[in-house]
């Protein structure tokens, strides 16, 4: 129903005038049947265009105009003959029938389009809600979408045992009536709608919708029951995601525990086993060993004691790193000097190793804890020795712009991409290490020590032609403050 004089009414009037003119022409041409039919077509068109009321007005007007102005006797209104009654009845009956039919059709079409837009809206909500990975994101998403639909806010209450928990804040609500009472407290209980969130495994909680108007004033509310079902689905999904993440974390920690157990049992028990067995053989009166074998066993015992000592040191280093090692006793040191110390330390254990040094001529100074960095360099060299297939290991120390750079390069088989991601993890051992020596802690310790001194550690592998691995350390360069500037006058 249109209250104003709008283009719709204008069109109806034009239609009426045109029909009247047509009827008049037909009447003049002495074709009364055509005249009536033209008016009828006019009424039908108005009914189609504007519905039953407009059609009835048009029908009355048409009856009057036809009877009074067009049909004989002109300027006289009277329904005395059947011929005069027929157009009146025909116009009004046509207007009523056509108008009603059109109205129904239009209602159905309107309903269909409303249903379609509701479905589209639910689909949008569903789509947005399914993207949420945390329950608090569900509320945020709803607050962005629902206000356009006459819902000013949504509050979700998750059921946990006998009380509710608000997602996000984690606020615990002990009183089961609280969601209802909150609406009362805010004085808008009649604008609140509380719906249960039913999940597959039982009630998940409640959703309280606050409407912008009173419920009775809203002829078209979004389908809140369906929305509640979608919310429940999204919450369940979030809970499942949480459980999956928890299970993964659990599995990871189990794997680490497992690695720790097997690594410690292997690396501690092996030397102890060797020492106990060797000492047992030496002390047993039943076992008569040649002198040379006795010496070998004694040497083995000493060697395994060193191994135990090294491993204990490594475990202590790991402990330091895990406790959040921060390098306090730093000083300006020359990386070349620390490298030379590390090489000397390695040579006492492995005299046969060949190390090629490529040092800058000038000092390469960094501000770091010298013993940590020396240990890190030693670990890198020892690692290159283990994986380097007994080839020459290169050690480079140079200045690169604002950075001090130290590289250790071996000529081994290289590391594949999967191992590259894991090589700095605790207890990680590459599977191409022929002699299975080592605890899998060396690179982890090197990384921890270097980073605690503000440095960075990277790996490049293969270096060239599918072979070799290069570990690169970078530290902020320290300006040389130990020597006074050179005298320019000389």
């Amino acid at each position, binding site marked *: 129903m249109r209250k104003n004089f709008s283009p719709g009414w204008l069109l109806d009037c034009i239609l009426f005038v045109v029909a009247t003119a047509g009827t008049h022409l037909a009447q003049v041409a002495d074709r009364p049947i055509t005249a009536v039919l033209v008016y009828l077509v006019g009424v039908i068109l108005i009914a189609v265009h504007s519905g039953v009321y407009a059609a009835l007005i048009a029908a009355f007007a048409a009856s009057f105009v036809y009877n009074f102005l067009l049909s004989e006797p002109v300027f006289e209104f009277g329904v005395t003959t059947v011929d005069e009654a027929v157009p009146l009845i025909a116009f009004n009956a046509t207007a009523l029938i056509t108008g009603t039919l059109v109205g129904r059709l239009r209602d159905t079409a309107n309903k269909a389009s409303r249903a379609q837009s509701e479905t589209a809206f639910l689909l949008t909500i569903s789509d947005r809600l399914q993207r949420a990975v945390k329950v608090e994101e569900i509320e945020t998403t709803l607050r962005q979408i629902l206000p356009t639909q006459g819902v000013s806010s949504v509050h979700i209450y998750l059921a946990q045992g006998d009380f509710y928990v608000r997602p996000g804040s984690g606020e615990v609500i002990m009183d089961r009536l609280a969601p209802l009472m909150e609406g009362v407290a805010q004085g808008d209980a009649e604008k609140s709608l509380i719906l249960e969130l039913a999940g597959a495994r039982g009630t998940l909680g409640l959703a309280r919708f606050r409407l912008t108007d009173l419920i009775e004033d809203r002829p078209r509310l979004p389908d809140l029951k369906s929305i509640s079902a979608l919310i429940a689905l999204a919450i369940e999904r979030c809970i499942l995601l949480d459980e999956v993440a928890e299970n993964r974390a659990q599995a990871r920690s189990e794997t680490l525990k497992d690695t720790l157990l097997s690594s410690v049992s292997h690396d501690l*028990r092996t030397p102890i086993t060797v020492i106990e*067995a*060797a000492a047992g053989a030496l002390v047993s009166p039943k076992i008569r060993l040649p002198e040379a074998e006795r010496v*070998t*066993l004694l040497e083995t015992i000493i060697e395994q004691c060193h191994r135990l000592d090294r491993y204990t040191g490594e475990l202590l280093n790991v402990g330091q790193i895990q406790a959040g090692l921060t390098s306090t006793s730093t000083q300006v040191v020359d990386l070349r000097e620390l490298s030379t110390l590390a090489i000397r330390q390695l040579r006492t254990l492995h005299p046969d190793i060949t190390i090629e040094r490529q040092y800058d001529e000038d000092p390469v100074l960094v501000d770091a804890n010298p013993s940590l960095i020396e240990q890190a360099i030693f670990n890198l060299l020892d690692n290159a020795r283990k994986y380097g297939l007994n080839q020459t290991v290169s050690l480079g120390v140079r200045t690169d712009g604002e950075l001090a750079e130290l590289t250790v390069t071996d000529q081994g088989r290289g590391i594949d991409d999967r191992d590259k991601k894991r090589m700095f993890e605790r207890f990680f051992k590459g599977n191409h290490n022929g002699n299975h020596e080592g605890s899998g802690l060396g690179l982890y310790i090197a990384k921890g020590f270097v980073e605690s001194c503000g440095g960075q550690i990277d790996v490049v592998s293969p270096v060239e032609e599918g072979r070799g691995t290069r570990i690169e350390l970078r530290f902020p360069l320290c300006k040389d403050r130990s020597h006074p500037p050179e005298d320019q006058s000389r």
Partner: protein
Amino acid sequence: MKILIVDDEPSIIRTLNPVLTALSHQVIEATDASEALRAIDKTSVDLVLLDLGLPDADGADLISAFKSRAQASVIVVSARHLEADKVRALDRGAEDYIDKPFGMEELLARIRVVERRLNEASGKDAAVFTSDLLHVDLRTRQVRLMDEPVHLSPKEFAIFEALVRSSGQVVTQRRLMIAGWNEPVVDGQYLRSYIAMLRDKFEEDPSDPELILTESGVGYRLAETLTPVG
């Protein structure tokens, strides 16, 4: 005896090799599973000392190969001390196990049990087992401890017989349950009660057993080694 040592730790092999050689055993070395399998293909082996934690395979998976392809006895050497690992290895046919670290004397004793069993190939069909302490006749079901007869109920005897047949070696709970109840899974409490009854009859101090020893989480071991007769 020809002994194959399978261990990824060269230092363990370096220590065991001279000792076993000095005791006139012939030692073959392998540091991983593939080397071990190549070794048994090339030569006959009587005993394998098998470390379970090998770099290229789970040691337990090799046991059936050692048994079927080389008819070798297997003593498992384990660093992880996990009961489940040991039970699995024993169920797959290993004769015995020893935890790292081990005393040399203890290892040699275990090896001697295997060696003795090997020399008594006829022992499998034997009906009489004897030692200084015990005399067991499986046909007449007579048991004598220090020459004194010991009376056992049929179930006690069945369990005791399983221990006697593997005297000196560990027998898993599963095997004892099969011996006593013909099924591998019965309430562990039953087995414990019968072991307690056997200890009452054989041990001087049942609370501190010296003959029927508990291998925690794995099974039981008859400490006395008996020799089959006839």
